[in-house]
């Protein structure tokens, strides 16, 4: 495992029967960076994130996180990670504050961690309200607060801006962007909002049908796209062309 990378996967594969959700994935996520994980629906982004969190068992391959290997150091790996997968996960019968309090006790964090996370996600005012009565945006913020609790060294965020209004999206983008500098945190973030990811990520990984099509910086992506004769005006154009090209090649292969 390279010293620079905090997350590395080696031929990570997940299959369900004869369907391959993730195929021989080799990710290299640098410490202290924001890594934008892109791909169309069903590309395997969430499955990859679930495998990194131990929620799904890899069919083959391995990964290392913060110099710890899975599955041997599963508990130690989870200790280093805050996560938000697919949709906000919480206890609807509890208030926002009570939800975070449970997480705080499990993670054995100081009492101030809850107030800190609520403040960071703008939920302080609504902390006494039952979580099931939150709006979608507030539930999303609660999920984020849970992930950010205690400032873990690694954050895994799957579509963190889903359901947020433009102001909320801007706030979350600014927050995610600031995390590496503020808390020496590494962020793996997936999103369908390509302009948002373009603004927040240092490195990108583009996934299609479970295979990693590209990994690297925005400049490297532009160079790759130029060499392949694809448009490079913005990330969205490049992304769409790259996926389209892969789908056509895939059709030919099949």
């Amino acid at each position: 495992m390279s010293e620079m990378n905090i997350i590395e996967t080696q031929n990570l594969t997940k299959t369900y029967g004869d369907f391959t959700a993730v195929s021989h994935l080799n990710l290299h996520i640098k410490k202290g960076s924001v890594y934008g994980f892109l791909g169309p629906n069903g590309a395997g982004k969430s499955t990859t994130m679930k495998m990194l969190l131990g929620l799904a068992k890899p069919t083959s391959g391995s990964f290392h996180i913060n110099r710890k290997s899975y599955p041997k150091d599963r508990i130690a790996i989870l200790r280093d990670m805050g996560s938000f997968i697919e949709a906000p996960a919480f206890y609807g019968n509890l208030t926002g504050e009570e939800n975070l309090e449970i997480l705080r006790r499990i993670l054995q964090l100081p009492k101030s961690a809850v107030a800190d996370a609520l403040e960071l996600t703008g939920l302080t005012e609504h902390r006494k309200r039952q979580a099931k009565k939150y709006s979608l945006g507030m539930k999303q913020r609660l999920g984020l607060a849970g992930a950010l609790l205690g400032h873990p060294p690694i954050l895994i965020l799957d579509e963190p801006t889903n359901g947020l209004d433009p102001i909320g999206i801007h706030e979350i983008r600014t927050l995610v962007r600031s995390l590496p500098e503020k808390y020496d945190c590494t962020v793996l973030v997936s999103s369908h909002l390509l302009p948002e990811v373009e603004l927040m990520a240092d490195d990108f990984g583009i996934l299609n049908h479970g295979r990693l099509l590209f990994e690297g910086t925005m400049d490297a992506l532009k160079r790759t796209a130029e060499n392949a004769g694809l448009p490079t005006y913005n990330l969205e154009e490049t992304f769409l062309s790259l996926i389209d090209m892969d789908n056509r090649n895939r059709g030919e292969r099949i």
Partner: protein
Amino acid sequence: MSGTRVPFLQPFLETRKLRRTGFCPAFLGGGLLGALVPAVNMAVRAESFTSQSGSPFRILMDANWQLMAQLNIFLVVCGACILYHTEYADNGIQKARSLPMRPLCLFLGKLTILAVSCLLPLCIEALSLLLCRAHWFSDSAGAGRQLLAGLAFELVLLLPTAAAMLFLSSMCQNMWISLGAGVILVFFSSMLPQGSAAVALMPFASPYRMLHQFSGREALWMCALCLGEVLLFCAAERIYHNIRRCFS
């Protein structure tokens, strides 16, 4: 960021998750309902029981325990469903599974809560039996000791049902499925032949047994086997968790 496996903290955390779920009122209400059974039965036909010879406690148990046990089993079914419904309703379980703790901790925490909660209806019912005995029967020698032994025995006999029902609830994301399956099992178990030793050990059927039906040695064996069943369900939950991760 520090973390822990929190095995001993888990039951305490589980109680915090139960706020506003109706879990405690359900057990309190269920206990009171169970306590009404001997009181109403005695109030309506006291002579049929007071005319019988033998230990008053045994007479009361023989006359009322089948219905009281059925209520207790139903309460365990509802309790297990509530415990896992809080996890599945808003996907809290996904967050719990991504925290640095052993997967079985969640199950064990809930099992502890359910076992401790069963004490509440059992105590209320025991109190009701004690009051019935004091009010309608003159002989009250050794009542306290008999009652405590009976209470402990019935609690141990409820544990396999609690573990089985929690295992079932942990598998069903939809609470109505686990509740429906639980209710079917409650009624199915009440139809099984009562004399069979194998049936006596089955979850959902074992709580119908009473301490006075067994010799001291048999009662100890019964308790040991029930605790063994609990361990089996814990192992089953562990295996299920590993299998589920392969398909999720």
